[in-house]
């Protein structure tokens, strides 16, 4: 399982002067589950696009298991880091659900049998079983997004990067994504997810990295990043802690609850 490191990473998009990443240093150990949060335009997507070589640093380095990503081919990077885009329509191109999910798995060189199983697992995890022959554009927006996720899951990369996986998902869809993240955790895969959904972040991730203007400003477990002591810093980038954390503070629950269920548990213990 690879270990990811970003050292002094700077990215300036060639057209214009915007410094999308302004010296980011980050180490993510194999098997970690990291949520990346921050205001729109803070550099989250730019950062993760460096992890699989879609973007190359203006300066600084991306290390994958100690190897400089610049020395790896796009194929080598793609086999290690699977990236699911925010907008599935930038990713989907096949005429059928099955074709879409098989494409990546074939390209990372999974054998016929392994591929068949990986595709089946991915379809099951995303609830797309039985839809194999459907044209992706006949699916609703939420399921098309799950299809994009399935096509990357089927590549069975040791690192999974999800760019806003819960947007447009209903309660059941969010639960599905949560399970996919939990299962990836159980199998030791590294998961990095960008999200504005603080409840999803607080419940599903052991580490939260907060970005502002291309820099990392907070990094720690949800109970620390969302604790009252961090609210001013969160506020500086227009983020809010999950409401449960605010309620926990007002009730004087001691530690920072990240969800209603935790509020109930802590409250019962303290009351």
């Amino acid at each position, binding site marked *: 399982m690879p270990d990811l490191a970003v050292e002094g990473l700077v990215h300036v998009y060639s057209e214009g002067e915007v410094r999308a990443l302004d010296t980011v240093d980050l180490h993510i150990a194999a098997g970690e589950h990291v949520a990346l949060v921050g205001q729109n*335009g803070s550099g989250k997507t730019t950062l993760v696009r460096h992890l699989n070589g879609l973007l190359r640093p203006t300066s600084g380095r991306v290390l994958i298991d100690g190897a400089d990503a610049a020395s790896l081919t796009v194929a080598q990077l793609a086999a290690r880091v699977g990236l699911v885009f925010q*907008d599935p329509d930038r990713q989907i191109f096949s005429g059928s659900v099955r074709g879409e999910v098989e494409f990546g798995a074939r390209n990372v060189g999974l054998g016929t049998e392994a591929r068949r199983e990986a595709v089946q697992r991915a379809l099951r995890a995303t609830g797309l079983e039985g839809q194999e022959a459907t044209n992706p554009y006949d699916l609703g927006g939420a399921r098309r997004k799950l299809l994009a996720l399935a096509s990357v899951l089927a590549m069975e990369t040791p690192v999974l990067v999800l760019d806003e996986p819960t947007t447009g998902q*209903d*309660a*059941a869809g969010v639960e599905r994504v949560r399970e996919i993240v939990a299962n990836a955790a159980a199998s030791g895969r590294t998961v990095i997810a960008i999200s504005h959904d*603080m409840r999803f972040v607080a419940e599903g991730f052991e580490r939260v990295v907060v970005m502002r203007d291309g820099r990392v400003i907070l990094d720690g477990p949800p109970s620390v990043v969302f604790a009252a002591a961090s609210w001013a810093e969160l506020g500086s980038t227009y983020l809010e802690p999950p409401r449960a954390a*605010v309620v926990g503070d007002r009730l004087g629950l001691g530690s920072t609850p990240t969800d*209603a269920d935790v509020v109930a548990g802590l409250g019962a213990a303290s009351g």
Partner: protein
Amino acid sequence: MSIGLSGVGYRYAGETKAALLDVDLDLRDGEVLGVTGRSESGKTTLCLVVSGLAPRTIGGRIRGAVRLDGEAVDDWPMHRLSQRIGIGFQNPATQLSQVAESVFEEVAFGPMNLALPRDEVVTRTWDALAALRIDGLAERDPRRLSGGQQQLVAIAGLLALRPQHLVLDEPTAQLDPAGTRLVADAISRLAADGGSILVTEQKTDLLAATCTRVAVLDGGRVAIAGPAESVLADDRLPRLGVTEPSSVRLRRAIAAAGFDEPRIAAALADA
């Protein structure tokens, strides 16, 4: 200004099953109607029908009657309808013109096509950009913005048209909490000026903050409709695939932990 639907049904071209059935809805002057429901319950279809794109642009068969300000619009062509009602799509990439070189031009594109005087176009464009606090992006290339920034640009383009009626399909899907609040404020201001607005959302917290009434769709039918407060506290929401607002979940959790009503109210106050 009002929008009325009575007995509306709709079936997509080539489909045997109706996507909407027997929908009765009324939006009065200055009202924001929130529509929620699980994925593929008919939310996007409802937006297409209310805005008139279905069936005028995408085909299919419609039944029942859609009225704007009391007038039946059945035989109105799209160009007439679109001067009275605007629609914001779920995916901002679909909405942007792809021909504008700057955010300013992109937002001015709609008003320019209304053949308004030049000064009026400029005023409206700056007003819309300022309302969503993206005036700082005016010179940027809209195609090179983050997903959330693009969503704000797309909404600014609609605000600049100053529509009397507006349909927004998950307008905040890709937005951070600050962007979400700006859009919520813009919706409230439009409504205060007398506009009627229909907004679909999975984020029930946002519906609680902006809507006067809420309807929940299930299988293309209206399952629950009524005042926002009562619908969002309805115990059928989980069964209908809708996430309960965090205030509802937290209230239950705090009560279960044994806190009394004054403590509950204090913990939940305007958070």
